[in-house]
Structures are given as structure tokens and as C-alpha cells.
């Protein structure tokens, strides 16, 4: 159980970190989603893993699981869901305005009269 959960968190984090380092905004948005899944699972596990126990402390209950991380995860899910929607909309806006979905800034951001086009670096075959 512990091994399963921790390896799932680790793999999701690794996939998320790999994806947010890509140059295309679609991959970055996916990577953000992966990372937030990983963090949600991680938060869930901070109250220790207990199977088949209610999330409340009652008289006569032999075991219970910590309810607070579950509340935190709910908040975190809502926030990360909203943020993912915002970043998806923003990436779409940048794609429509700029014509490509690269996340790095074109040369026109640094130099007067710099290039705004997508082909900033020659031999750029990032997919």
C-alpha cells in the first residue's frame, strides 16, 4: 500500500517535471496537471494511510483516519482545477495572438526590432 502510493506520487511528479520543462504550452499545461495530481495524493497521505476507517473520532471506534488532509486535498483540488483552466485559457490566447504555442519569449521581448516569429533558433524541431 505504502509502496504503491509513494511510487505513484513519484512517477506522477517525474512525469510532471519532465512535461513542464518542454517548450510547448500544451505539454506544460499537462505537466501542471500531473504535478497537481501528485501533490494531491501526497497531501492525502500526510495524515498516514489508514484503510477502512471513518474520518471521524467516535466513542467505540477502534481506528479512525485523519480528516484534515482530506479537507485540504479538497481545497487543493478546487484551486488547482481553477488554475489549470486559467493557464489553458491564457495559453490559448497566446497561441491565437502569437501564432505558435511556444512558452519561451521571442527575441522581440529583449531587443528593439527583434524577431517575433516562431523560428527563433535554427534547427528547431521540438514537437
Amino acid at each position, binding site marked *: 500500500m505504502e509502496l504503491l502510493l509513494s511510487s505513484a506520487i513519484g512517477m506522477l511528479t517525474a512525469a510532471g517535471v519532465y512535461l513542464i520543462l518542454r517548450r510547448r504550452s500544451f505539454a*506544460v499545461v499537462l505537466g501542471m496537471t500531473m504535478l497537481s495530481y501528485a501533490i494531491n495524493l501526497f497531501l492525502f497521505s500526510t*495524515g498516514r494511510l489508514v484503510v477502512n476507517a471513518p474520518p471521524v473520532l467516535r466513542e467505540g471506534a477502534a481506528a479512525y483516519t485523519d480528516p484534515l488532509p482530506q479537507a485540504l486535498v479538497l481545497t487543493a483540488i478546487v484551486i488547482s482545477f481553477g488554475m489549470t483552466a486559467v493557464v489553458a485559457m*491564457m495559453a490559448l490566447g497566446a497561441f491565437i495572438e*502569437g501564432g505558435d504555442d511556444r512558452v519561451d519569449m521571442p527575441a522581440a521581448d529583449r531587443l528593439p526590432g527583434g524577431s517575433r516569429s516562431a523560428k527563433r533558433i535554427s534547427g528547431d524541431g521540438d514537437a
Partner: protein
Amino acid sequence: MSHLIIAPVVLPAVIGPLIILWMRHDLLLQRVFSTAATAALAGVALYLNLLAAGGEVQVYRLGNWAAPFGIVLMLDRLAALLLLLTALLALAVQLYAIGSGWDRKGRHFHALWQFQLMGICGAFLTGDAFNLFVFFEILLIASYGLMIHGGGEMRLRAGVQYIAYNLAGSTLFLAALGVLYAVTGTLNMADMAQRVAQMPAEDTALLRAGAVLLMLVFAIKAALVPLHFWLPSTYANAPGPVAALFAIMTKVGVYGIIRFFTLVFPQDAVTQSVVADLLLPAALFTLAIGQAGILGTRHLGRLAAFAAIGSVGTLMIAVAQFTPQGTSAAVYYLVHSTLAAGALFLIMDMIGARRGDLWLRSDRAMPDHGLIAALYFVAAIAIVGMPPFSGFIGKLLVMQASGTAPAMVWIWATILITSLVAIYAMSRAGSIVLWKGAALGPASTPAPPAAGGPKLEPDEPIQDLGDAPANWLAVASVMLLLSGIVALTAWAGPAMRLAEATAAQLHDPAAYVAAVLDGQEGTK
């Protein structure tokens, strides 16, 4: 217990939706209500300062739940001072946005402004670590909207980067909170401080990892090198008034570091010196790279952004001392650098409005150069830390506070050498833009607005002077910010005593903990 402690959160939270729902089509009404709300916020913040001046930490228990089960809002000297600073900066910058016409270049400017203030005020007030995360997200999501206000390709591209960076930072924040909760079993900051202090030293490996994670999160917000990469493009591409308000956002990260590492992880306890050992070199590099960036950049917006990074570096040098003297220097410099950076961003925006672009080149005529040059001169002197303004006093205090530190030679050398670099860079930029621009004569005055009213191209990177409805208001608001710097210089003595009292309160975490946890039977 005064209910006004929660007013800085509730007031913008009520006005913001009201502006969206009730007056979305009436810009005049939006301006009146939004400005009135910000002015009222300043009034409340002033009252809260008087309340906090007694030296007692005020606790506001939401829903009257007992801590550590309910969320508490805490009002101490630092929180009250930062609330006042936020409100005054926001008021001046908002007047600038109205006067220059930035607020009508896109929709919902004033609503987003209020949500932004709600997030910032909440982050300063809250005494609960997870609640701090929630307020961070509120201020971030409002800042995403404000940052791309007006639209345009470059601004949207920079916006995507800004969001991606901060989303990664938010996941890191959650990870840090998860680790701290797993170790201490609480999220209330005062309760956490108590449990951390009681923890046996051999069980603190995970706790130290959580503390460093938390420091990284705040370092992202404060734009400490090497986590500063989001800042230059974001601030340079954001509308001028928005960048000026963002001057307080980096200070939210600094506030987080000061709060957590004086209250929960005091340096002599669990974390030993691991945080200070990381922070000090980061601060020195931040200062060096910020000031070198001023010299290296060819864009005036980026110039102001790098100046903001450099001032955060100076600030963090003082914070990283973790002594009462260092903290009081940090508090003084924090107020100064927020006002100076805000004014500098507005002046850059005024230059852009008059010459038509923000590139550092000498072939553009500069209308109104006398007035702008005077304002730029004051702001530049303040931000590089030359006498006679408060930047000089602030830097002197930082150097004094680090005079006995082991790394004193490095700190003093970095501060002095980078100050020279910044003086050179700022005077070069000023002479290229204002002096050589003036020599070109008053050519190319801005075109008068077309017959159908102002042209208001929404995705222009700058705001044309011809679109400004009340240019005098824009100039007056910059003067308001600069007069804040002058006041901070003229009354440096009282300001410093206030900073010292603030630092003394911060370095006495026992009083803070006692205010939250003790004597709350039948809480009221």
C-alpha cells in the same frame, strides 16, 4: 477584539463582486467605488496601526472557533504596517491608472484590483499556514488577470510563463505544507511554533526539509536568484500601474520568510543555520544580478524590473541576519523599496506614453522632459541608495546590521560595488532617454484623439498620452509616491523607532504564541 481586523479582507471581497455584478458597464461608477474602497482600506489600515501600536498581538478568531482548530487572523506591528503600505501604494497607483486611462484599456480592471488587494491583505493577516496558501492563490489569480490587462501578444506570452512558474511554486507550497503537517500535526502557525520547539532534535530531518521547501516557495515569490526568472518579462510586459502594484507582491514573499523564520523556525532552534546559510548567498547574488541587469538591459520596463530585483536582494541581506537589528533594517528598507519601485514603474510608463516606446535608444523625442526628468531623478536616487533620500538611510542600516556578521566583507563589498553599477546604469539610462531625447526637440507630439473619442488600441504595449483622460492626476499620483519617500527620509527617526519596535515584537515569538493559544476558554 476588534472586528475591524477582518475588514481589510472583507471590504475588497464585497466591493470586487459588486463592481462585476452591478456596475460592469459603467466605468465612472467603477472608478468611484473602487477608489473609495481603497481609500477606506487605507483608513482601516491606519486604525489597525494605532491598534497594534500598543505592542499587544491582536487575535481575531474566525467564527469564534478556538485555536488551533479554527482559523485565526493575527494583527501585529508588521502586519499592520504592511497593510498600510499596501493600501497607500494601491491608492496612489490606482489614481495613476485612472488618470492615464489604463483602466479602460480592458475590462474588469477595478474588480481584479480589489481581489488583488483582498489576497495581499489576507496573506499579511492570516495566522494559519494553509489559509496563507489560499490567500496566495487569491492574489495570484487576480494578478494573472491584471498582468494581461489590455492584452497583446507579448503580454499574453509573458503571462503564460508567469502562470506556469507560479503554478509550479504553488505545488511546492502544498508539498511544504504537507510535510509540515505530517511532522507537526497542525497548520496553525503559533501551534506549529510550539510543537517545533518541543520536538527532539534527532527527529527533525523531515521538518528541516519542510522548512527549506517553504523558504523556496517564498523565494520564488520574492524573486530571489536563482528563482527570479519569471520577474523581468512579467513586470516589463505588464501594464505600468499593474507592475507598480506588483512591487508589493515580491514583498509578500519577503513577509513570508520573515514571519515563518522568526516565529516557527527561529534560527537557534531546529533549523540551526541552514536557512540563513542558504538565504545570504542567494541575497548577495540577487543584489548583484539585479544591479547588473539594470546595466545590461535595453528596455526601460526591464530596467525597473531589475531594479526591483536588486532591492529585494538588499532587503534579503538584512533579513538573512535574523537579528533584531537586521530585521528592523529590513522593515525600514521594505517600506522604502516598495514605494521607490512603484514610483519607478509609473515613471517608466509615463516615459513610454510620451515617446511611444520603451526601448533604451536616443533617437526618440522626449516631450515634457523637464518634469519627467525631475521625477526620474528623485526615483533613481532613491532606488540606487544615494543621499539624500531614504534609500541611502536604508542601505546604511543594512550595512550597519551586517557589520558584525562573519560574511561582513562580502556583504559590504557587494552592496557598495553594485550601488556604483546601479548609479552608472541609472544615469546612463536617464541621459539617453531624457537628455538626448530632449535635444531632438519637441517633434512628434502625440496625435490628438480622433473625432470618435480616444483610439484605445487594446493590445498596444504602452498607453498613449493622447488616450489619458486626466494626465495631471497621473503626474500627481507619482508625486504622491515620491513624497512618501521624502517623508520616510524626513521622519527617519520615528520610522526607525517603529521598525525597531516591529523587529522586537517579531523576535519575541512567545508573546505571539501566547496570544493565540492561551486564555481562550469560551473564546470571545
